[in-house]
């Protein structure tokens, strides 16, 4: 019975990873098992199971390259699990199934790590454990097995937590197959079509916590992720030199240094004097390499690199939530001196593209010879003309910037940024497109910013002599609220990121109470991410220091021994092994405990005084508790001296103990109050 539940419980969270046909086999196995359980179907012959197992293993080996090694492994395990499940004959088979079950739970953890799914999987772990218990327990006693399972699990949790905190974290011991999840979030090309998709997603992209609780204006939160320097007439792309550099970081063996070489910025000593912003970011899994940082971002974390275009880049794809620390220098210029080759890259435009826009840019160049003036004029141009911001822009033709800038005059950030960068380049100023996220929702309870996918944004960086790359966001001219107050202030969520899921819980954003609740959940999830998922050597050190002061080996050993001892004793106590000396009669104890307290208030009960007489004296001395004490006395007398049935006895016993507890609290409270007034 337990097995039936556990099988479904274990398999269901993994369904995303399972291929269709393994799912089909699993379903057949489960149905078969139900049949066996009900006694309707015979057990499968051994040869059938063996053949099936072989066939599926072979098939999986063949498709392993296509679906990824890890997924293949998961599928193999699931199939083995399902097949073993129908041919179960004795205790040993069940044990194998249970162990495989735990392993599958672990695999699920690799895929899903949210607080919610963890709780879910804990329940699955519990069910799996109950299967084992039912093996050694009365098979029919469902409730008892569940109770014992919960007990064992709960008693094991403290030690597990201590181990979790104390045991050293090791770096990965060997290379593991990547998980090959679907890539989410930004892409490394930007065209007129692709950011709108993101604005329809209410998924979390990353969270950032600033040290010293720095509060930043929404307009300062430009999270850079990708820099695009090449424009081919339809889309913006990363420059090949950067792509080569990125590749060199992920795969150190390929040292292909053809073409333009670009080196990462190293001058840290220069930066020291500048105003610094330090913060940590928890990136959600995206299966991509790029990370998010403000302005000139640097990071000393292992596995994070700084690229020549001042971005952060992870050596391994972000397959799991990842926490990294960043220090940004908002006032530091990016690349104050631009190499001629790079300047050429950032000035180049495809031939004969967007002739009307080019002409407009030339006019600007003629009118405003000074670069800053010219850029200001271009920015102003967007407000002077009737441009408006929309996530559903009209279609554009082949000369897309011409169409947008001069005909439609409606678009979103990519349109404005593209047009602005194009005009800047056409007028002789190096310019490039940057994509990333803009803004962040501040959670005041936990003090962090959440950045969602719909906050994806694109803007322009223009190179000015001595000032380096300077950020220009033409979208801010059209829709300043979008930048200053955040995405939500400008857009009706129903139109953008909720369009696809009208009933998603984000749609309650507008309601104050739900918003509060949502924020609370978000904070819990945040702490979960920081303290459990992001628990690393640093945090371990910090926790241990908090508990032990300076961490020495002896102290650590003593801590381990003491905590092990305490845990062992408490488990033994709760298992009924150790009993403190105590009178067996619980009712007598409950009654006496109250009498003892009253004795301290100078109203001792005489040895030969009956409970009823004592009750009268108590009522006279302490009218405030007279009613409650009377109740206690009545319960006590009923249990001790009246012959009542078994069931009422149990009920009364519970009432008596409850009443005793209640009275104790009242008396102690009164005494405390009395003490206060005396002093």
């Amino acid at each position, binding site marked *: 019975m337990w097995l039936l539940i556990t099988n479904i419980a274990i398999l269901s969270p993994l369904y995303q990873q399972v291929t269709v046909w393994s799912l089909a086999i699993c379903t057949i196995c489960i149905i078969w098992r139900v049949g066996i359980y009900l006694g309707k179907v015979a057990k499968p012959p051994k040869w059938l199971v063996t053949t099936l197992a072989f066939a599926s293993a072979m098939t999986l080996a063949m498709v392993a390259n296509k679906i990824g090694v890890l997924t293949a492994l998961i599928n193999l395990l699931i199939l083995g699990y399902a097949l073993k499940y129908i041919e179960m004959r004795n205790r040993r088979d069940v044990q194998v199934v249970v162990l495989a079950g735990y392993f599958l739970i*672990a695999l699920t953890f690799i895929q899903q790590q949210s607080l919610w799914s963890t709780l879910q999987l804990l329940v699955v772990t519990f069910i799996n454990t109950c299967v084992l218990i039912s093996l050694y327990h009365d098979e029919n006693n469902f409730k008892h097995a569940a109770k014992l399972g919960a007990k064992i699990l709960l008693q094991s949790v403290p030690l597990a937590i201590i181990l979790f905190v104390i045991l050293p974290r090791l770096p990965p011991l060997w290379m593991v197959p990547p998980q090959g999840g679907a890539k989410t979030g930004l892409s490394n090309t930007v065209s007129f079509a692709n950011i709108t998709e993101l604005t329809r997603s209410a998924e979390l992209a990353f969270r950032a916590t600033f040290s010293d609780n720095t509060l930043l204006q929404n307009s300062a939160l430009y999270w850079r992720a990708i820099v695009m320097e090449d424009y081919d007439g339809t889309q913006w792309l990363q420059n090949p030199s950067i792509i080569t550099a990125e590749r060199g970081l992920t795969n150190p063996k390929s040292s292909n240094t053809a073409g333009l070489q670009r080196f990462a910025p190293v001058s840290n000593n220069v930066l020291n004097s500048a105003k610094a912003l330090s913060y940590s970011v928890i990136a959600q899994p995206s299966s991509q390499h790029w990370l998010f940082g403000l302005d000139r971002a640097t990071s000393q974390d292992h596995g994070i690199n700084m690229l020549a275009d001042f971005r952060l880049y992870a050596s391994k794809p972000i397959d799991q939530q990842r926490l990294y620390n960043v220090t940004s220098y908002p006032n530091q210029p990016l690349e104050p001196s631009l190499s001629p080759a790079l300047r050429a890259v950032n000035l180049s435009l495809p031939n004969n593209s967007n002739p009307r826009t080019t002409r407009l840019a030339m006019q600007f160049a003629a009118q405003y010879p000074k670069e800053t003036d010219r850029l200001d004029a271009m920015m102003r141009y967007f407000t002077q003309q009737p441009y408006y911001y929309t996530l559903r822009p009209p279609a554009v033709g082949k000369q897309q910037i011409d169409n947008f800038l001069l005909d439609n005059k409606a678009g979103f950030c990519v349109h404005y940024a593209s047009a602005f960068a194009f005009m800047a380049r056409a007028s002789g100023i190096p310019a490039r497109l940057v994509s990333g996220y803009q803004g962040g929702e501040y959670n005041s309870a936990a003090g962090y910013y959440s950045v969602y996918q719909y906050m994806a944004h694109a803007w322009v960086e223009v190179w000015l002599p001595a000032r380096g790359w300077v950020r220009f966001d033409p979208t801010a001219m059209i829709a300043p609220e979008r930048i200053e107050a955040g995405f939500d202030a400008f857009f009706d969520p129903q139109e953008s990121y909720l369009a696809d899921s009208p009933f998603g819980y984000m749609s309650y954003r507008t309601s104050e109470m739900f918003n509060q609740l949502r924020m609370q959940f978000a904070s819990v999830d945040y702490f979960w991410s920081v303290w459990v998922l992001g628990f690393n050597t640093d945090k371990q050190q910090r926790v241990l220091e908090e508990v032990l002061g300076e961490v020495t080996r002896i102290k650590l050993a003593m801590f381990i021994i003491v905590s092990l001892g305490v845990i062992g004793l408490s488990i033994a106590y709760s298992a009924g092994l150790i009993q403190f000396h105590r009178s067996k009669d619980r009712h007598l104890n409950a009654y006496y405990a109250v009498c003892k307290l009253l004795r301290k208030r100078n109203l001792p009960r005489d040895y030969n005084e009956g409970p009823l007489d004592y009750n009268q004296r108590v009522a006279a001395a302490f009218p405030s508790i007279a009613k409650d004490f009377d109740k206690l006395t009545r319960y006590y007398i009923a249990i001790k001296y009246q012959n009542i049935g078994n069931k009422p006895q149990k009920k009364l016993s519970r009432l008596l103990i409850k009443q005793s507890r209640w009275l104790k609290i009242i008396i102690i409270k009164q005494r405390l109050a009395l003490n206060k007034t005396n002093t």
Partner: protein
Amino acid sequence: MILTFAAIKRQIKFRLDSWLSRRIPAAKSVTLSHKSIFILPTGFGFAWICLFIILFLFGTNYQNNLVMGLSFLLLSMFNTCIIYSYQNLAGLTLSSTQSSTHSFAGQPSYIPILLSSKSSAFEIQLNFNGQPLEIANKVVAQSLPSRLTVLQPLRGLLRPGRLKVESRYPLGLCRAWSHVDLDIKQVIFAKPISGQDTLAYNLGARDDQLQSGKFIAGIDEFKGLKQYVKGESLKQVAWKQWAQGRGMLTKEFQQPQGAPMWLTFDLTASNPELSLSKLAWQTEQLTNKQQIFGLKMGSNTIAPAKGEQHRIKVQTQLALFPKKYPAYRDD
């Protein structure tokens, strides 16, 4: 080489046994405590530890704290289980009781044991060395009678030795066990083999041999009480016993017929085991026919009598005859 190996093994076994008998001395009733309980992981327990190691490596390699957490939880559960498996056996009381039935050599012999436990104990496996398992699913404070099997015992006084009490409760990760000596002694009767030749008669009244030494139902001698059957004469009812609340019983009377028979055992017999077996067979036969018979074994004599008590007395005498040869077995 093999010889010395066997010698070492014997030596170790001897040492272990003497250590055990010092640690858990023989007693009619034994309550298990920390002194007498041993705990070691089972094969499944080792597999569990392996799973822990695998998950730990898995979590380390993927830098996944949740997988690590799960692995620690498994390890911690193992630790909890050690305490639980100890708790399961601790306080378990085993006591031996006198067996009401006797068995013959070669037939399975059943040894009654009483189990009780202060706190509930589950899934207790009991067996004597190399003998079939007996499983008690739940043991509570109230004594639970349990019957252990000893297959194919030999004639004589059966000492099954230390009883192994084992439990893998609650998760099968640990095996908690104990070897207790309940000081069990049981007489195993000689295996009955049919044969007439050891029968001898006190008086040579060969003409009525089949009738001799037998009682027939009659009126002279009070034989005993039996359950009242509807239709029997009310005059025969034992009213005194009825008044004592022992139910309706009928008085039975009988009268002796002929002279008692003697079973004799020839101490010089070439195959004493076979003779013993034949005597055992005859004892059963004569008891079934309700005949009076006695036993002569050299200087030991059992006066003629009949009934269950007498049968046991005779059979015990036969069973305890000193062994010179291995017990006769026809397999």
